[in-house]
């Protein structure tokens, strides 16, 4: 059974992982966090990454063109069939990967993985986070 804490623990097994959390991007609530966080403040980090995730999830620039755009757009950012899969921020020393969690109820949650740039592998991390985001809601 994959709960929030189990998924976060597994996220920390990703090579280079420094810290991981599950965050709600509408409210900025941290639903759980493990490892360390930038400036040792997981709650402030959650609120800041939530702002970034919200912009990616909601701004029209990132919604792909398609027949469903517009009229049915109301359901496209409720956690179901999100237009955006992940957001990656590269700093001089680290990677931040935000992976959206797709749910069948109205929800706005993502994984945040903070990893060391020298030790981390971005492609591997994206792959593992995708699996974790699915397992969190599929059990």
């Amino acid at each position, binding site marked *: 059974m994959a709960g929030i804490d189990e998924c976060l623990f597994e996220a920390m097994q990703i090579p280079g992982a420094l810290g991981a959390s599950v965050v709600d991007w509408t409210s900025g609530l941290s639903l759980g966090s493990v490892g360390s966080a930038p400036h040792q403040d997981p709650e402030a980090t959650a609120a800041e990454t939530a702002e970034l995730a919200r912009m990616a999830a909601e701004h029209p620039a990132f919604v792909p063109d398609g027949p469903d755009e517009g009229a049915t757009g109301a359901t496209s950012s409720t956690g179901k069939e999100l237009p955006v899969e992940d957001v990656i921020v590269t700093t001089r020393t680290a990677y931040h990967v935000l992976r959206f969690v797709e749910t069948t109820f109205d*929800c706005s949650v993502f994984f945040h993985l903070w990893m060391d740039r020298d030790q981390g592998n971005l492609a591997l991390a994206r792959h593992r986070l995708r699996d974790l985001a699915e397992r969190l809601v599929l059990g």
Partner: protein
Amino acid sequence: MNVTSPMLLRLAAERATGALLRDRGTLYLADGQVVHAESPSSPGLEVLLTASGRLRPEGWREAVDRAGAKGLVGRFLIDSGQLAGGELELCHLSALHDAAFFVLGPSSGPTRFRYGVVHWMGPVHAVPTDRVEREAARRRELLDRLWPYDSVDSAPVVRADRGPASPVTPRQRSVMALADGTKTPQDIARALGRPAFHTLVDIRRLAAAGAVETPRAPAPVPSVPAWVADVGADQDVALLIRLRDALEAAL
């Protein structure tokens, strides 16, 4: 918030189990941590799960009927394969902080604590009391930053005649579609199966953009029905009966 803080600190320190009753709702504590919260201002867990069709209303009722008395409704929903553990946790935490935001909000009413009261939902995910209080305070600041007028939080909202000054997001569009001048933000949250706070965030953003207004005097804040105060009597009787049984068994 200032009223409840010392009380919550004390309850956390003594690892208390029971219900903290305020006029905007109830916090349930187990071993000094918050395990559940309910408020008339926020949709309950069942609304979040059934409005989207994720859970059938019959499935929810069956879980309450069969596991409610044992206080294991959450466990039943998972064991019967209706929900994944992670899904329940996400929804439960979302509903808990949503209700706690209103319970811990400014209030002139009394705050009481009933020892021994256990919620029928059962254990899902416990949150330390200071974490719950910090989050409620942070949410209040966030709303004030978006649009510092709380009249839009409780009154019916209506779409403004002129269009919004900035683009409206898909989530905001679904809120605006229901802003018909009769529904309050709480009504809209319930209809969409979204947390009330999330709806307030969208409504304050829309108000700041000039997309919605409040056409009439704010509706009265919903308060807990009077029967909530009576719950205590039954709980006390149940506790006395358990005590008597335990004493008799020991003799």
